[in-house]
């Protein structure tokens, strides 16, 4: 990496420009400027070291330039983040509903029960879908906001969990346990997914579920296969991980 590459890289890293295309364009523009600057220095007979020193003096501190760019594109960056987060939450909720719906349909077919019977408690289960997505996405959002500290990264998740506990206890006091356990399972799976150890994160969904089971008994007493909650949650968390990866690929540095 040349000295000029280093300057451009530092500006780009700190400027947090929204959009891959814009980042490429600004990078190209700054690079072209520095190339012109280097050519001017060479034409005046400076060696590489002196050229780099003068270029730095004339070009300015990368930190200041990046801060100026960040200020220009600040509102757009936030608008994009809000839009992308909304899209992520919507896509995640749909994925969770599809996964859980498929698992329940298979169970219904095995029991020779009508598939439509899975819609029996759909209004209650929608709390569960939302809770899985919220648990997973809130921890992911915490990771993005506080990349250096796991304790701080967990703060949005814990806060949201407490708020949801109060909300569910008020709205559906009899069925509050399942969505809250689903929330904890999803957050715990995300936590273990960070370790990148194959299949270990399965425990992330199993452990809170087992604890809840021991403490408060069967989570869905009316269902024939209550243990199906675990594969439903586990496959949902796998789907959520893939959705997050897809968003990171599509939106690039906006999301990463």
């Amino acid at each position, binding site marked *: 990496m040349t000295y000029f590459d280093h300057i451009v890289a530092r*500006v780009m890293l700190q400027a947090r420009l929204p959009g891959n295309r814009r980042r490429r*364009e*600004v990078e*190209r*523009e*700054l690079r*072209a*400027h520095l*190339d*012109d*600057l280097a050519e001017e220095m060479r034409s005046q007979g400076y060696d590489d070291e002196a050229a780099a020193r003068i270029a730095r003096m*004339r*070009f*300015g*501190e*990368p930190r*200041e*330039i990046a801060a*100026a*760019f960040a*200020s*220009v*594109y600040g509102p757009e960056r936030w608008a994009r983040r809000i839009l992308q987060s909304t899209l992520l939450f919507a896509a995640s909720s749909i994925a969770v509903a599809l996964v859980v719906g498929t698992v329940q349909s298979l169970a219904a077919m095995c029991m020779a029960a009508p598939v439509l019977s899975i819609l029996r408690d759909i209004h209650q289960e929608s709390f569960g879908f939302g809770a899985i997505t919220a648990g997973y996405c809130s921890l992911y959002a915490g990771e993005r906001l506080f990349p250096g500290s796991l304790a701080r990264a967990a703060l949005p998740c814990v806060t949201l969990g407490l708020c949801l506990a109060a909300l569910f206890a008020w709205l559906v006091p009899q069925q509050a346990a399942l969505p809250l356990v689903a929330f904890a399972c999803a957050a715990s799976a995300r936590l273990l997914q960070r370790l990148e150890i194959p299949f270990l994160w399965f425990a992330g969904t199993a452990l809170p579920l087992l604890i809840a089971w021991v403490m408060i008994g069967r989570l869905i007493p009316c269902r024939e296969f209550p243990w199906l909650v675990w594969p439903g949650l586990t496959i949902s968390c796998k789907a959520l991980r893939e959705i997050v990866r897809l968003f990171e690929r599509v939106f690039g540095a906006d999301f990463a």
Partner: protein
Amino acid sequence: MAFDRELLKGSIALLILRLLSERDMYGYEIIQESVRRSKDAFEFKEGTLYPALHQLHRRGYLRSEWRTGETGKQRKYYGLTAAGRKAARRSEQEWISFTKVVNAMLSKAPS
């Protein structure tokens, strides 16, 4: 004479609009031209020009396109839009009025 950095920062938009009202230019060319016209008095940090250009572009005062210059290099040229021309005229008028007031304040009161 070296000018105060904050003073230069505040007038950078006016300088850009003024220079681009004459012809389309790319960033490095804007710097060279401002240094030449100010006889080396304007020595602002060259990198800070680009956020200012992007700010004006976002406000709709500038248009931009990549073109191949005489040397065969690709450069991003900026030019004024209709709104940019209006803004350039307005900024110049403001500057002239402002300097008149400042000069009047600085001149000695008649005894």
